[in-house]
């Protein structure tokens, strides 16, 4: 019974990783009769590819624009929820904020795409009516594509972190807060001196998971930044890999970019773990 299961683990979890690394050294195209070993050629091509660097920049812009905001906002919301005295309301808010997480990301992206529309989008028409702002081409302007995706992603992905932070905060004994309050600590002092340090491990875990998942986000870019956005301004690494592998069928080169993405995530995770150990080691 165990053997077939181990075989599944091997075939679909372990083997593809090895194969992915190997493929990055080949000029692999499923439509070619012959797929040659090309050594580091895919990687040197990568270093000369301006679109790769643009996608790398966009990925970093998106990840570092979204994740810190996500963590700060979800921490504040979780703290506000935990401090409410009405337990029914606490539960309702958690469910409500979780709602976008159960919808497929593509489906909400399609709704937001209509909301962002220049001519008949609800966002522009509200801005025009209440602030008299001229219609803005959110998804068609190079400098606005990534910020628009960031706003959408914040909306779509806060629920998980709010619930995990709330669970962590509920585990902190109430006496701590009462003692601090009697000593005259205001809500902000209490948040920084009790909640944050005691949330240490959960916080470190959530930051790492949020970063890793945002590096790999794909669906909203495919929908909101149509065909990579104007002048590739919305092209991120995940989209570039998909396009090169499955539209251009250049799977060797796509694997090389995927490995660059992997290295980026790995270096980033190691650095993040280091920083967190310094901050929260107790």
């Amino acid at each position, binding site marked *: 019974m165990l053997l077939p299961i181990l075989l599944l683990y091997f075939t679909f979890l372990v083997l593809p990783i090895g194969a992915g690394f190997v493929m990055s050294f080949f000029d692999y195209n499923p439509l070619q009769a012959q797929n040659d070993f090309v050594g580091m050629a895919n990687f040197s091509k990568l270093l000369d590819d301006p679109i790769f660097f643009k996608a790398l920049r966009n990925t970093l812009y998106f990840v570092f624009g979204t994740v810190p905001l996500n963590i700060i906002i979800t921490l504040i919301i979780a703290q506000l929820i935990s401090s409410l005295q009405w337990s029914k309301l606490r539960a309702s808010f958690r469910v409500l904020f979780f709602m976008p997480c159960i919808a497929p990301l593509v489906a909400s992206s399609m709704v937001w795409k209509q909301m962002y529309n220049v001519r008949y989008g609800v966002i522009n028409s509200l801005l025009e009516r209440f602030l008299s702002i001229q219609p803005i081409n959110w998804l068609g302007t190079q400098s606005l594509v990534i910020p628009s995706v960031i706003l959408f992603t914040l909306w779509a992905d806060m629920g998980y972190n709010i619930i995990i932070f709330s*669970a962590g905060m509920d585990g902190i004994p109430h006496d701590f807060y009462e003692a601090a309050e009697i000593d005259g600590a205001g809500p902000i002092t209490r948040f920084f001196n009790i909640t944050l340090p005691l949330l240490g491990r*959960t916080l470190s875990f959530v930051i790492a998971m949020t970063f890793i998942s945002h590096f790999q986000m794909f669906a909203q870019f495919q929908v909101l930044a149509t065909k990579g956005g104007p002048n590739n301004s919305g092209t991120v690494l995940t989209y570039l890999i998909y396009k090169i592998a499955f539209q251009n069928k250049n799977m060797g080169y796509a694997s090389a970019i995927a490995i660059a993405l992997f290295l980026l995530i790995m270096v980033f995770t190691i650095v993040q773990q280091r920083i967190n150990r310094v901050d929260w080691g107790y």
Partner: protein
Amino acid sequence: MATLTKRNSWGQYLSLIILSGVALFIIAPYIWMVLASFRSTQEIVQNPGVILPIDWTLEGYRNVLTNAPFFQWFINSLIVALSITALVVFTSTLAGFVFAKFDFRGKEGLFWLVLATMMVPYQITMIPIFLIVGRLHLYDTLWALIIPGAVSAFGLYLCRQFCEEIPDSLSEAALIDGAGPMRVYWSIIVPLLRPCIAALAIFTFLEAWNEYLKPLIMLSQVERMTLPLSLVFFGNAHKHDIGSVMSAASLIMIPAIIVLLLFQKQFIKGISITGTK
């Protein structure tokens, strides 16, 4: 004490106001989506600032349900998500039980090898998986999603953690009494793992139900598509029919929200478990 409660209640109302503001930001797109689904496209384009439908119409819904195999897409999604959930729960609990309670050569090495795969982005493995699926002649069938989805490194990790909390004396006693390992698994381990299974099942189902990239790679025929993929396909085919696209989006999102509201306690508990483990 009186002053404390008084200051508290001001804070309470302030928190409530802030939270309600954020809540409005969260639901606004849903409200807009549902209301737009009852409007004709012409009306949306001509009166973008109007939120309430002027003429309520079911035209969008009729278009989705009659001019597209929506029911087939729904069934496909259900088959894929349910199969993956059942398989992942089975493989993860069984492997978690074996890794927690039995000793064999290379055990720790194997376990860490599987765990390490969690670090690797899907972008690396999707190309080889696509080629393996092709070799197995599963391309463009629902099996192309179900079989590679049958194992989960995260599930193995979670189940091993939970199995290790089960006292060895329980499983050993049963083994001495002559019960086979499968019997121990089925009648001792599985019942004790219920909270873990619930959390894992919720997570796996949500992920499989919402998955977009995998179906995008693995499926091409319209009748084989799962809901998220079909919505994009439908959206591209009816680019200028916003009312219909919003109807399709509503049909996909509303059932999920109803399920969330029905099982909210289990959802919240499941997510909390995985976050604090």
